[in-house]
């Protein structure tokens, strides 16, 4: 009746994956013991170039890439294990995150040999950072409505327009931008292309967009006759939409989706202590029942990717459940253990609660809104 598999058959991890888990845990313990990072919520948002370089040197970036491109040729499940350990530890992964997960694989799939040779070794070393230029002031969920244009000139393209909500553009080296290389036509998805833009180029004005927590992760970039050489076009001119969609399919059910407020849950468990009352125990138990289930579902999807399937609807479903779960954690915490309940040594709990509360609105928006995801699930059910 539906083409959506809802069984989510358990995916057992193999000994190789447990070995990789030991490897990354040892790396993280060493980093943590040396005090290189503080456990943070929203580990994707924190950037630390030194951490990224050490992670790259230890072989944890580009793990799934083929060996000919410097990768380890490991599976999605292997990478899944490393990612969930990084996220659960609250390690600062913001700098290399996009390059590792999206830009590198995109270049492997669509890039020219020269592009691969130029960028992949730097990415894998944790030294070259990318951001994604998709959203615009008038194009959020409706990505096909973008207006940034690239006009053909001798030897390259002139880019004009504005990109918005670009995480970490201010600390990235390159943007992979989706631009219109032809005017809109009846086929809304035609005429778009992807370009690698060196963020040090002339004609780019990067402005910070502070979020409601007062932090600077987002940016707005205004392009005014910014020249992009021909050899920086990714894939085929006019094929941008298809390339972008293939990129998104891999990102939806990663472990970061159900771990965004994990540190908050840890602090709640710490706050109530080893002997919780019935209300506290039920609240923690309920959240844990969701956590463990979502983690198993994400593992199943990673396993399907490893097997060469593309479970796009399943991934959307796991992301929808996961982001709602992450939003619930601070709301449950404040009711079960009110921030003024402790004896004054409550700073860590209150900080975690504040951060989780402030970031919660973003979870069901970024990377595909709740409404878009549920629309995808409905399509999977055959309703549209």
């Amino acid at each position: 009746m539906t083409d959506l598999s809802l069984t989510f058959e358990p995916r057992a991890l193999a000994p190789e994956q447990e070995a990789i888990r030991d490897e990354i845990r040892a790396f993280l313990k060493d980093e943590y013991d040396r005090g290189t990072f503080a456990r943070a919520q929203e580990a994707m948002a924190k950037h630390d170039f030194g951490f990224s370089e050490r992670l790259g040197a230890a072989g944890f970036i580009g793990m799934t890439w083929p060996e000919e491109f410097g990768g380890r040729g490991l599976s999605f499940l292997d990478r899944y294990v490393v990612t969930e350990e990084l996220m659960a530890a609250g390690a600062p992964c913001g700098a290399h995150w996009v390059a590792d997960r999206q830009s590198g694989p995109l270049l492997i799939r669509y890039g020219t040999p020269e592009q691969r040779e130029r960028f992949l070794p730097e990415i894998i070393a944790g030294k070259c950072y990318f951001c994604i230029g998709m959203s615009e002031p008038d194009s959020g969920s409706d990505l096909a409505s973008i207006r940034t244009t690239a006009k053909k000139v001798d030897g390259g393209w002139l880019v004009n327009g504005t990109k918005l909500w670009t995480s970490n553009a201010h600390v990235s080296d390159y943007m992979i931008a989706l631009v219109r290389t032809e005017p809109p036509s009846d086929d809304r998805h035609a005429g778009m292309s992807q370009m690698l833009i060196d963020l040090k180029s002339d004609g780019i004005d990067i402005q910070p967009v502070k979020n409601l927590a007062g932090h600077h992760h987002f940016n707005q970039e205004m392009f005014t006759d910014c020249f992009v050489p021909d050899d920086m076009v990714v894939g085929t001119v006019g094929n941008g939409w298809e390339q972008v969609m293939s990129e998104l399919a891999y990102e939806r059910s990663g472990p970061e989706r159900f771990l965004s407020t994990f540190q908050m849950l840890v602090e709640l468990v710490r706050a109530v202590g080893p002997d919780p009352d019935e209300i506290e125990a039920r609240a923690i138990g309920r959240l844990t029942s969701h956590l463990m289930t979502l983690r198993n579902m994400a593992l199943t999807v990673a396993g399907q990717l490893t097997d060469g399937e593309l479970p796009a609807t399943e991934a959307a479903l796991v992301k929808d459940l996961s982001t709602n779960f992450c939003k619930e954690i601070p709301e449950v915490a404040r009711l079960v253990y009110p921030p003024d309940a402790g004896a004054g040594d409550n700073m860590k709990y209150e900080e975690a609660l504040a951060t989780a509360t402030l970031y919660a609105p973003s979870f069901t928006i970024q990377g595909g809104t709740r409404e878009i995801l549920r629309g995808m699930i409905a399509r999977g059910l055959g309703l549209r």
Partner: protein
Amino acid sequence: MNELRTMILDTADRIFRDKCDQTLIDAAEGGEWPADLWQTVEDAGLAVAAVPEEQGGAGGTIGDGLALLKVAGRYAAPLPLAETFLAGHLLAQAGASVPAGPLTVAPVHRGDPFDVPGGALHGVASKVPWAAQAVGLVVALPDGVALVDPADCRIEPGSAVSGDPRDTVIFDGAAVKVHALDDAPERLWRLGALTRSVQMAGALEAILDMTTQYVKDRVQFGRPIAKFQAVQQSLAVLAGQTAAASAAAENAIAAVEAGGGEAQIAVAKARCGEAASSAAEIAHQAHGAIGFTHEYALHQFTRRLWTWRDEFGGEPYWQGELGRMVAKAGADNLWAFATRSS
């Protein structure tokens, strides 16, 4: 999934699809024992699928038995299959042989008092599923299990919201032989919770299928109601709840099969119960008035969810248990706790 399990599940699916229809369920809820359906299931070796061959079973694993109950849940099969599975498991674990025919278990309510002075069983077991239809009643006692002939007890029939029998059984001195088994009541309680979890996961799959089909067929304002975004969004939530319940149940099955499952059973019962409440609400809303009628089969599934979610401990019980496990492990071990596979 291994070959034997696939075969068992295919067989079960075929039998229930052929025989377990709305009319049969109606008749069963009216008090008519579905003898033909039971016989077909028993002849196919499904009633004791998870009991070792030397003890009278089909030699499948505990996971096979549980996976089979998910299929039964998908058809709202009005048979004591979960109870026969539990009874067979307890007897087999205690080294006793398992009789043919429908069996049930007691106590299913934690407060029920039992005493066995001089080998004579005294006590009252409430809400015992299918006691009047069972040929044997397996009673879990602190030091073992006893197989009791229902003819030696007094049975006061009753029924649950599900429409299935839940009887009061009065033991008034029946002579019993206790087969030693550690923590028998605890084993029954935990495994009972898991059977209800997998039954719920199966029923949820049926509810999602029914609801998806209904909104595609039902036309209002000149188009199928599936075309309305409000309907699409709520069915997406229904799909999410169904998938989460299935995942939680399947993971608990895998963990139990691997020899553990303490935390995973708590997760499964808590998560499936929560999914049941949400899914039943959405399914009824999507069906409108027709779903509230006796004529339309949705209630055969939703009523069972409303009963199963509370049996062998509802969400408050299992959430509390899980929460205490987490608190005991400690904040800094939460991740290690959550990632253990069994």
